[in-house]
């Protein structure tokens, strides 16, 4: 049994912050049905980022703007526990897919709308993309080291898409737990903007003044002389994390600085942080005297926390690492058009109700007929809906029309 066995989620989302949450909920055993426009998800053209958020879903291509299409959508909602999407404010109401409408079909429904900005407020009518909320949440300022005269820096990982999606997934599961215990459904929302601020949740004001928090250095190596990257003799790098007193003493031992290490001004982590400039200039030339490999061996022997940053060739070494594959951290599946794909696998392990990857990212409308049959439509009904472009299933023109 999977943790979320028997849970059905209808995913009306497009792009990334919508579909990613349902994908992860699917990995926990829920059945996820992606309702895709007959013209395809607007993000399909993005390829890798798009496919990264779609695995394991069943896909019905449906024109929800048509009278027959919306009836099919309502039938899907009746069969579901969760509805999830990222439409801009007002769109769901216009499409008659808002919570007030849908709870008439399914009174205990969990209904989640993820927004760019939020439900109410001065900018809530705007959509927007991830970089805006990396900006507003303080990420780009800190990542780039703007206070040193550097340009702001965008994190390439799509941080707030993922954060918003995961907030929505946590919210859906908490609401579903409440529903299972009380029979009550509810509406919930999250936003890219709030998702951005979560990354800066260590930021605080006291009497309107910022409480000091770690800041990156000009060269983007780290936030402390003992929590940063150092360049080694072979032009490689090593990351150290000599956070606790014992780590500092062990590090100093390996670097030949034992006498200095016990001086009072280096006695605590806070005082060592104050001496960052001196420690940086002391340690940088020492790290240049041995290779990264030599350092890490010495550090491991002396219990100094350190790692050599891994150059993964954009994930390839991680996705083909034997331990990662064996432990299920890598998922491999065969896409009907693109062939074999690999992506990260299970992110949470359960002793009794293991996760699973249900399959590859679906083609547009790949499961249209199967889903319509499960809703009681006959093949003749389906053919009629196809003929009227209310639904779509892959045909000989598929590649030309959608690529993948």
């Amino acid at each position: 049994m999977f943790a979320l066995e028997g849970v059905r989620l209808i995913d009306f989302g497009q792009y990334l912050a919508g579909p990613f949450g349902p994908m992860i909920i699917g990995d926990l055993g829920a059945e996820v049905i992606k309702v895709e426009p007959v013209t395809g998800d607007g993000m399909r053209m993005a390829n890798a980022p798009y496919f990264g958020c779609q695995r394991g879903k069943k896909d019905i291509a449906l024109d929800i703007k048509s009278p027959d299409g919306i009836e099919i959508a309502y039938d899907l909602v009746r069969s579901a526990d969760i509805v999830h999407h990222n439409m801009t404010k007002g769109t769901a109401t216009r499409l008659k897919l808002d919570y007030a409408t849908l709870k008439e079909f399914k009174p205990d429904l969990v209904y989640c709308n993820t927004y760019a900005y939020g439900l109410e407020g001065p900018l809530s009518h705007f959509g927007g993309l991830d970089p805006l909320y990396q900006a507003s949440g303080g990420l780009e300022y800190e990542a780039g080291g703007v206070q040193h005269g550097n340009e702001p820096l965008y994190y390439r990982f799509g941080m707030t898409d993922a954060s918003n999606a995961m907030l929505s997934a946590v919210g859906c599961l908490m609401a579903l737990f409440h529903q299972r215990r009380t029979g009550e459904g509810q509406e919930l929302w999250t936003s890219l903007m709030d998702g951005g601020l979560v990354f800066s949740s260590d930021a605080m004001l006291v009497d309107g003044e910022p409480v000091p928090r770690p800041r990156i250095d000009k060269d983007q190596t780290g936030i402390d002389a003992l929590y940063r990257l150092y360049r080694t003799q072979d032009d490689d790098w090593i990351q150290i994390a000599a956070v606790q007193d014992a780590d500092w003493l062990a590090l100093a031992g390996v670097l030949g600085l034992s006498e200095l290490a016990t001086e009072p001004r280096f006695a605590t982590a806070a005082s060592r942080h104050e001496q960052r400039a001196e420690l940086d200039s002391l340690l940088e030339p020492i790290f240049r005297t041995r290779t990264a490999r030599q350092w890490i061996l010495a550090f491991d022997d002396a219990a100094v926390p350190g790692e050599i940053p891994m150059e993964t060739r954009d994930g390839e070494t991680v996705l083909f690492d034997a331990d990662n594959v064996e432990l299920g951290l890598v998922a491999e599946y065969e896409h009907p058009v693109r062939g074999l794909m690999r992506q990260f696998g299970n992110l949470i392990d359960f002793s009794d109700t293991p996760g699973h990857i249900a399959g590859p990212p679906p083609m547009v409308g790949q499961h249209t007929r199967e889903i319509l049959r499960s809703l009681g439509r006959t093949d003749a009904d389906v053919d009629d809906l196809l003929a009227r472009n209310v639904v779509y299933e892959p045909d000989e023109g598929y590649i030309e029309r959608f690529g993948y």
Partner: protein
Amino acid sequence: MAGALDGVRILDLSWGIAGPLGVLMLAEHGADVIKVEPPGGDPFRGYSGAHVWNRSRRSVTVDLKTDAGRAAFTALADTADVVVESFRPGVMDRLGVGYETLSATNPRLIVCSIPAYPPGHRWADRPGYDALVQASSGQQWAQPGWRMGPIFLHMPMPSMGSIFLVPMGISAALIAREKTGRGQQVTTSLFQGALLYTTQIWLWLEDADAAFHGLMAKTYPPGVHQQMIFECANGEWVHTSVMSGLTPKRSMDDILGLDDMPDAYAFMSASAEERQQYTDLRRAAFKARDRAELIGELQANNYAVEAIITAEESFDHPQIIANGMRATVHDPVLGETTQMGVPIKLLGTPGTIVGPQPTVGEHNDEIWGGLGYSPADAAAFTGAGSSPTTTGGT
């Protein structure tokens, strides 16, 4: 009004970011969270962020290395639904409070473990600070920056993935328990937290082509979305977006006072040299404008644009305020603070900040007393009177 997790009791033994911040989402939606600390306190209380990550819970201390402390903790775990811990694999078993032991008397118990690496991995015993997992998982090399080589990620990425996996795993196990009547061991790791953020960039294809990975490909200097960052007057920066979901009323070039600029299609088909000339013109136009004024004008014309600000400045953002993300919390150490609010909005069972980070062992009398321990008995395992050993700096 009751929270979604009302009646769920969670014992949080974890330190750092992943456990405390992950549990926070459950604590602020109704769960009764008790932070279980060693006698001197969680050694990571010196982090500025700990005041936020550890709020909305009570605190007890217990020395798990003593028989009396172990017995008291086990008695407390018998009253709990969830135990969360972030020790290296095997430490809980060595302390005699592993899943097998605790579930023998409380089979409904869910134990959520957050080591740095998954149990069974050859790295399982490697040190587990966030930056080390950034390094080992390849994220530092994956991020472009202002020099070649690995870039330190100021935002602690592996932990920031785990903060979502922790409440998700616990919630899923609670949902499963409604059906099975049994708890289970749930495990995630900082390493898996880092993998979460590779969704958009790490998709291996047997039959790869450049176009498939083009959009999010790593470039030097940094590529995707970086070109939409502009400097305004006074050294202030903005990020504009290609998409707002609304129809622009005027062209951006018109707003910038630029004449004779190509439309998007003409720009794309121009030569690299011409494109650079247009880009330089736009950069100069941005640089001549006051940021606040320009943002107002762009937004009024339906362009999505945000000031690139510090996290502290975000507390003044009108939409952050509208979202309830600017909260006032009276912290017993710092006083009146402004902190992040509750980011998940459940409209039927709204979340709420329950209280500040408790002081070390603040609720010893209340909680151990509730289990029948007199303050004198409890002193044998709470280490009452011992001084905190906190770590500052990072």
